[in-house]
């Protein structure tokens, strides 16, 4: 079924739905650049950029609350049904994931500041860069799939999370080996490990966004491995 959110008899309802979708996608854009900045701050030991990431965090929290409020008002005033209801539900769920991605970006920024203070880690930056490229692509693709109501693209992006998880485990094993060889580096390598962990979590949240694309378009809840709920795929 095609998605049309601009054909309600009530023009205000069209605008309300369009507006929460736009708010969510704007928030997505902010979060995506926050992740990019956090990773750059870590890779370049740039504590100034890291501070900027921490600062944006407040704005993202504020936007999540505003979005929730708008969604609640739409439910109260319009009692949305079917695809409209799924739109409202998916937007609020995605907003929560975006806020958490923002939290993870802040954690990475804090590690960047710690590494600037304690001296850079001897290992792990290659892995960080590698995984960061993958999860940033996942996040952008997920938001893009939402914009275009594109289930096929969402499913393809969702599948990429498996590779991210695998790369993460490989990186952790390597870094553990390194710490055993050189115990003096442990505190610095652990900062990198935490950042890797945050990136891996961002991949999970991007996957959640993809699941909401499927929910919005197909009405199927495929969270927690229930992909069989999506028929004909």
């Amino acid at each position: 079924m095609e998605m049309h959110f601009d054909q309600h008899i009530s023009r205000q309802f069209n605008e309300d739905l369009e507006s929460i979708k736009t708010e969510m996608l704007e928030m997505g854009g902010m979060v995506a650049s926050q992740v990019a900045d956090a990773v750059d701050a870590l890779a370049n030991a740039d504590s100034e950029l890291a501070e900027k990431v921490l600062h944006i965090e407040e704005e993202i929290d504020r936007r999540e609350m505003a979005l929730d409020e708008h969604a609640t008002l739409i439910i109260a005033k319009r009692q949305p049904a079917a695809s409209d209801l799924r739109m409202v539900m998916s937007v609020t769920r995605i907003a929560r994931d975006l806020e958490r991605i923002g939290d993870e970006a802040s954690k990475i920024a804090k590690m960047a500041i710690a590494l600037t203070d304690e001296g850079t880690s001897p290992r792990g930056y290659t892995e960080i860069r590698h995984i960061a490229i993958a999860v940033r692509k996942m996040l952008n693709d997920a938001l893009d799939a939402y914009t275009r109501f594109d289930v096929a693209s969402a499913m393809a992006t969702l599948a990429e999370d498996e590779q991210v998880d695998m790369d993460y485990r490989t990186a952790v094993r390597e870094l553990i080996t390194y710490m055993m060889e050189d115990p003096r580096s442990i505190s610095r390598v652990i900062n990198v490990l935490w950042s890797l962990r945050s990136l891996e979590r961002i991949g999970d949240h991007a996957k959640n966004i993809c699941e909401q694309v499927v929910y919005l378009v197909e009405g199927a809840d495929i969270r927690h491995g229930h992909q069989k709920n999506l028929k004909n795929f």
Partner: protein
Amino acid sequence: MNTMTLDATGQAEPVQPKPLEKEAVDTKTKVRETVGKPFCDSAKLRMRNVNVFYGEAQAIHDVSLDIGRNEVVAMIGPSGCGKSTFLRCLNRMNDTIEGCRVEGELALDDEPIYGPKVDVVPLRARVGMVFQKPNPFPKSIYENVAYGPKIHGIASRRAELDEIVENSLRRAGLWNEVKDRLDKPGTGLSGGQQQRLCIARAIAVSPEVILMDEPCSALDPIATARIEELIDELRENYTIAIVTHSMQQAARVSQRTAYFHLGHLVEVNDTETVFTNPQHELTEAYITGRFG
């Protein structure tokens, strides 16, 4: 011509003959087959390939639907879609409309509703009806409820009638409000109370099926909530078909929802499915308030 029909309890409902305009044929989204789950295992009412005509004009096109035991089926759709016409076929309320012709199989417990030997008076005792506007008789509250059992010979002695009246009023959730003024006119009650009185009157003759044609459209939200609560309780003992313009009401009270469009049954599905993920785009357009 203003014809009158009598339902189970003999209550009168003026029937305006439907206008005989030709329907616009919707070519873009022509409905061929009902999607979803029109049938069920324990059907109380079974309708197959029902066509209804008002003279030349066809009001219902090839509708097949089951209404199960202890089930509430909501019928929704825009004005003129045929949902009320279809509902009124189920206890032959359309019989007295001149030029109205019903074709197809309609069965109550596998017995044909339109069989040659069927007497509509006992049929309407088994299939009761509640209308959009509360229409109590201009008689006492007691007489309103006792009338049906009396004319159907269900009870004649005062003690039996007393019991039926009290039971029916209790089940309709009205007893506590009227027990001290049973001899007062039913027309003196508030709109919501009158509607519950009509429901009490309908269930006084122990029907098996209750048809409701927009029973809450003239009521305030509190009276509506009471009726909806009542529908939920009545479901334990009865089969209920309800026509409503309130989508939220359909979502709240029914187990399955049927969407009618230009005389076609477009979709029947579990109510949860219809309101979260309808299968047909016409259903989606209607329940979300889009241009159809």
